[in-house]
């Protein structure tokens, strides 16, 4: 599985757009990019997954450039409740079972 690098922490204010970038230089052809969110005292929750270009759902957008060596999770107009740890994972969408969660990015949203 490809190793990922993301910032340890980020601060933002309510109403701002937050972009969290993840580097994955060794991403393989069959790898997908997946993001999870974890609130304190809870297990991680799947947010979004993509392979290339842009994916959007009701929670976030995921931007993946053509070389796929990085990806950006975009959270529009964050609120206090978006304070959480965000994990970027890279790996095959099928076939492999192991999932590697790094230390994640701790996002703190201030009023």
């Amino acid at each position, binding site marked *: 599985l490809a190793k990922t690098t993301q910032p340890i922490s980020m601060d933002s204010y309510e109403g701002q757009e937050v972009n969290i970038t993840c580097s994955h230089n060794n991403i393989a052809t069959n790898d997908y990019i*997946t993001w999870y969110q974890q609130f304190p005292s809870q297990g991680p*929750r*799947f947010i979004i997954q993509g392979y290339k270009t842009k994916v959007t759902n009701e929670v976030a957008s995921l931007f993946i450039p053509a070389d796929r060596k990085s990806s950006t999770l975009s959270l529009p107009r964050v609120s206090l409740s978006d304070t959480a740890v965000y994990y970027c994972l890279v790996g095959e969408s099928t076939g492999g079972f192991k999932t590697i969660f790094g230390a994640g990015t701790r996002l703190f949203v201030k009023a």
Partner: protein
Amino acid sequence: DVKVTQSSRYLVKRTGEKVFLECVQDMDHENMFWYRQDPGLGLRLIYFSYDVKMKEKGDIPEGYSVSREKKERFSLILESASTNQTSMYLCASSLLAGVREQYFGPGTRLTVT
């Protein structure tokens, strides 16, 4: 909604005790996982199972064993608990293999004294 439940939210055990952590999922998922989470280290995979009675080691299996006798239940066993196994333990399940959507339980915070 998928539901993954874990037997305890908090557990305190003594060094040398045998500890059982239970996980149950209600969505007929093939795959189940046990992770531990420690500050600054993210989640680390201990064991996973892709079928009943099947198990595979994750990244840190030492000191742990697992059991999956029924599809919906995956147990993590600490044969002889040690203080360095004090951690948050998270169970997850998924329908598909690979880096796909995993559903997590609320976690069990285990303290070994």
